[in-house]
């Protein structure tokens, strides 16, 4: 698949931006400057970026508790995201949502739903609306391997399949549902075969390879826009950090994590770009520097932003 150089650099930029955002966010959580829970997407950047690069701005995504990466990949403003993590009025959700509920309707992000699997029906419904109105937009719900065991997932895939809805079900297999390893929770080894039970295509790609994800997503999106219905896209991935920032990770060995770290999608893509004369090292380093700067500005913005006024506590409950 031929991909424009500009798009390749954009992919790299988005992946690095996610990585820097997550590192900064983890730091804030570990220092106790951000409260609640924070679920890093480190290691899975190629999956979210590969998918979202295949989407238009007017396409929609529905996320999970681990959706900082999806939002950045879809074009969200990192300042408003970081402010949300710190519970500030300038955050996307005006401090009402926090890390697990970042929504950015301006970019087509319908929200991060922290009940595993619950974003699936929302995306199905959005796709239904698109189809009823004759629009060629698509909806993309993200879930992990754990999410694919929920009733939400199976009901949603079934409903989208019977109505040929424009949905790409992205299943990011990071191999652990919190501490439960995939083979303790699913009988089949290849999650993409679950698509067969619903009569839709199931595609499995290397989730560390942003171009492989992009290519598969592009094809699934085109199919959906043509009115041919949903696709299950499984991206084989791994989270290089714990389930949440600071998790003890008693359920896996350091050796296993280090083995997967060799597959880290960012250095891999960097090498690809340089080896194939798509980018010069300096150019990529400049992107790295810019990303670091953007995120440190975002942290500064978040820290200096006002907290919500307690007299507004009852706002936004009813329209």
């Amino acid at each position, binding site marked *: 698949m031929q991909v424009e150089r500009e798009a390749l650099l954009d992919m790299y930029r988005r992946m690095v931006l996610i990585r820097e955002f997550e590192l900064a966010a983890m730091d804030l959580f570990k220092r106790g400057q951000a409260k609640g829970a924070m679920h890093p997407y480190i290691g899975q950047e190629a999956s979210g970026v590969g998918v979202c690069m295949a989407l238009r701005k007017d396409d929609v995504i529905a996320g999970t508790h681990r959706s900082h990466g999806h939002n950045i990949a879809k074009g969200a403003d990192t300042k408003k995201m970081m402010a949300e993590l710190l519970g500030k009025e300038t955050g996307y959700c005006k401090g009402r949502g926090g890390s697990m509920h970042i929504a950015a309707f301006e970019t087509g992000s319908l929200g991060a739903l922290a009940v595993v699997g619950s974003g699936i029906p*929302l995306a*199905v419904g*959005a796709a239904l609306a698109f189809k009823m109105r004759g629009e060629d937009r698509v909806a993309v719900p993200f879930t992990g391997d754990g999410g694919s065991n929920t009733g939400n997932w199976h009901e949603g895939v079934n409903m989208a399949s019977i109505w040929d809805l424009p949905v790409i079900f992205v299943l990011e297999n990071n191999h652990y549902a919190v501490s439960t390893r995939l083979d303790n929770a699913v009988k089949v080894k290849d999650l993409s075969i679950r698509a067969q039970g619903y009569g839709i295509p199931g595609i499995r790609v290397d989730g560390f390879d942003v171009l492989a994800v992009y290519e598969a997503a592009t094809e699934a999106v085109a199919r959906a826009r043509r009115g041919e219905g949903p696709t299950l896209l499984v991206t084989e991935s791994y989270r290089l950090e714990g389930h949440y920032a600071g998790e003890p990770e008693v359920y896996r060995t350091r050796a296993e994590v280090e083995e997967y770290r060799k597959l880290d999608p960012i250095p891999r893509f960097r090498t690809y770009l340089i080896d194939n004369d798509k980018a010069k090292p300096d150019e990529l380093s400049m992107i790295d520097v810019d990303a670091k700067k953007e995120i440190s500005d975002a942290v500064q913005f978040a820290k200096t932003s006002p907290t919500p006024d307690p007299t507004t506590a009852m706002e936004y409950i*009813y329209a």
Partner: protein
Amino acid sequence: MTSIERDAVTLGSTKPAMSPNLIVQVPPDVPGKEMSYQEAIREALREEMLRDERVFLMGEDIAKHGGAFGVTRTLFDQFGPVRVRNTPISENTIVGAGTGAALVGMRPVMEIMFVDFSGLAMDQIYQEAAKLRFMTGGQCKVPWVLRMPQGGGSGKSTAAQHSQSLEVLFAHIPGLKVVLPSTPYDAKGLLKAAIRDDNPVIFLEHKFLYPFRGRVPDQDYVLPLGKCDIKRQGKDVTIVASGLMVWHAMQAANIVAQEGISVEVVDVRTVSPLDEDAIGSSARKTGRVVLVAEPCRSYGPTGEWGMVVIEQAFDYLQAPIVRLTGRFTPIPFADSLEKGAWPETSDVVRAIQQVMK
């Protein structure tokens, strides 16, 4: 209870279960027609679908079959399969897909066959639909209606998994509105308001009221959500009730009127948000209060209404508040066990006499 006919709820039956004259909301000189509660709901759906192309229906067996109680019958023929959508048996996804469609500009009306099945959809109701606007800091709205038949009636209900009254489950959740109409006029006007409202609205239809008839105006109208309705003015006793219990209250009010007791009936036709002032001001006026609701007593609506009375009318009370509720039991099947599971007219009469002592 003798005046509710045993066959009144037979599907498609138009036989009135109590005299429609108990509640007259549209006088004969106003252009209108008599119709059942079920027909009034159907007409509200039809008119809103004609008025607004964003409105569509989704649920199990709602197309040709017209739903478990025939409410949507004929709508499929008029609007077709795109706007009257049969779904698989997937309650959670019916509701969740409704939310997703609402987020991108549609106004779906979903049906769940019995409120008893709403447990299957609870995640999408109380975790997603109710909270999305709040959690996103007002970035979105979720304008949908979830229609669910509920309620039981002595000698006629269908045991523990099809007969409950569960408005309390929804009324406890910020972000939801909960409606429970008691008459055809209210059902039509409140459903139209619910469809036009920008929030998720739980619209509970008392299934034993489906055949109840009443006059409905020809002209388009909507009724306000979040307001009680005074179904009968009185000065001696206030009865606060909702759903089918309003009819028992009205019937009891007629009976005690012969003893010279003047009863005011406050219909809590929107369960949430609760119109506390309407309850409080009626209680201050009469000083004697009977609360009648179908859900169980523990943590049920009468506890909430009673507390409103205490907060707003304590100094005016001339007798302890009496409350009549469903028994704290799953609904049994056998007639002999089921009898007494809910308040009936005779219970309300006795309660009125008690507060008048």
